[in-house]
């Protein structure tokens, strides 16, 4: 995964992480502030930013950069640029 794509940027900003945090380390387990309130706000942000809607299965698995990135790729969303 690309550590400087739009999703990485969004997650780093959202959870106030150092800009060079490797994508692999962006997981709910590793980030203390990734609680249920943050989850709701994060989904609102993701849906707004990428103009995507997640299905129920996906929502239950959106727990890391990798999972979110996979879900967005399956919807044909490009994470490059901007």
């Amino acid at each position, binding site marked *: 995964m690309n550590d400087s794509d739009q999703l990485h940027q969004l997650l780093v*900003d959202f959870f106030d992480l150092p800009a060079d945090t490797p994508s692999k380390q962006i997981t709910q387990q590793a980030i203390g502030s990734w609680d249920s309130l943050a989850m*709701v706000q*994060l*989904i*609102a942000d993701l849906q*707004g*930013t990428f103009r995507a809607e997640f299905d129920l299965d996906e*929502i239950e698995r959106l727990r890391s950069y990798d999972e979110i990135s996979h879900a967005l790729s399956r919807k044909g969303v490009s994470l490059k640029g901007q």
Partner: protein
Amino acid sequence: MRRFPDVQKNAVVQAFESASLSKIRRALRLLDELDPEQRGPRLDVELLSTYNLEPILPAIQLALDCIPSRANLRLAPLDVIEAQVSQESKEPAHARIILWRIEEALPDLLYPFTNGFPEQLVASVDQFLERVERVVSLHQKNAHGVPLFLSTIALPVNFSNVVFAAQHCAGLFASVGRTNQKIHQLATRDGGVHVLDVAGWAAFEGKSHADATLDLMARQPLSAKGQVALALFIARCLRPLIVPGRKGLAVDLDNTLWGGVVGEDGVAGLKLGHDFPGNVHMRIQRELLELRNRGVLLVVLSKNNEPDVRQVFDSLPEMLLKWEDFAVRKINWNHKHENLREAARELGLGVDSFAFVDDSDYEREQMRQYLPEVLILNEGSDPLQTLRSLWETDAFDSLAVSVEDRLRYRDYTVRAVRDVEAHQDDLEAFLKSLEMEATIEEIGPSNMERVVTMLGKTNQFNLTTRRHGRGQVQAMLELPGSILLTLRLRDKFGEQGIVALSLAVPSNDSNALQIDSFLVSCRALGRGVEDALWSAMVSRALAQGVRKLDAEYRATAKNALAAKFYDKVGLQSVARDSSAVQYRLEPIEAHPSPSWIVVHNRSNER
């Protein structure tokens, strides 16, 4: 937000445009770095809701901060509206907002045939209406004086059977209408209850404001864009509590009130009428006429020969606005900023009370540079954009329009001020000829709205400029021995409404009163009204055995006019620092009321 530095302004714009939480948080952090002075007054807001507002709090915080204010949000737990309003507020907020929606408040309506359509549905709505009434009366009892904003019930975005729902008076659409009607009635009945029209807002925003997934996940029904839009809507509704609406609008004529340039096209060549594009100018005139009728003073600023303009007003039959609808007309070749400054002076207003509309980039830019405090409403030269700017502006927002506001347009008020200046030689005879009658009334529920408006808006003849809200005035009313008076003026031209008020409260010394506030509306200046009110206040103080009056003059950028008032009525200055002069009157002596004003005293229920 206009006064924020560029870094903050840009961050706020980005946050609202992107609706991204991280950008909202960044903007909030940057605003935190500003001085309290730049951030505006404190605004404590209590939020009660049947749905989950917690995820939206940062957006609401940012929107309120941009009023500008230092907002302090207090979010009650979900669904505890009655419990919360039943408690007496220890620290009353500046506003309380109640947000409810159909899913929790009237769930039966979503499934009519499972819930006893039609009789039981009617009963469910009745019960909810009783609930609304109960909540309002508990609020009045326990948080009296705190403005209450009740949300209307929005139509649900996600429900089936849209067609049938509209067919029956017990159906969903009619029931929601009935509920909202009740909420509007409560606001009409009680000056302290306001409507946060979430139903109107949701209809305006369309379906994109909603997010069914988030609603099912967390009872938070709004998309990211919807969150920002609701936050901005809440801020716009609360804004009039701390930012008074602009009192005047200065407008250009050519290519604004009509299409074309009178000096070049002649009256016959101007575009104004019911067909496009003349109808755009007609709509602009309609908007201006409505503003004038609700109390905004209109001023013409036009570079033209006055006889040409006069001819348009006299002979163009489609003109909705009449010559006398404008409180001041400056039609000459001087700079518009100079003309506006002069018009403001004639009207007794500060230039910062004005908004400005002009199709010329040059004129707007010059105004911006010379008088940055004037709010420029339109951009560019397109009359359609000018019309849109009048539709969208929050510059004249207010929660109530009083009788006094609606009477303000009368040209005579302006003429009277000018006449006072013109008749200095024989002032007393002139004032007598106005046949003025003043009615002194105690402050109470019937005049509270006007009192709070005056405290919020009066700048020039205002000795202390304390912007008390309803709650603070109510608290003064409850102090034994306080003397809180208004003066209502009538003259030969008609009813002028309440034009002056005085708030005297018991001080620490026994038998002493402190004048907290004393102010006179600018349109009643120069007529001796302040002496009549002072005289009435002093005689009431004497009657209740008060021996000493303490007062102060607190200088602001605008109230120099009132600086010598206490000296004039015989108080001794006892202390002074850079911002205030303290005065005292001991023992108290009666003060003569002007011979040209007939004074009536009327008591009022507290």
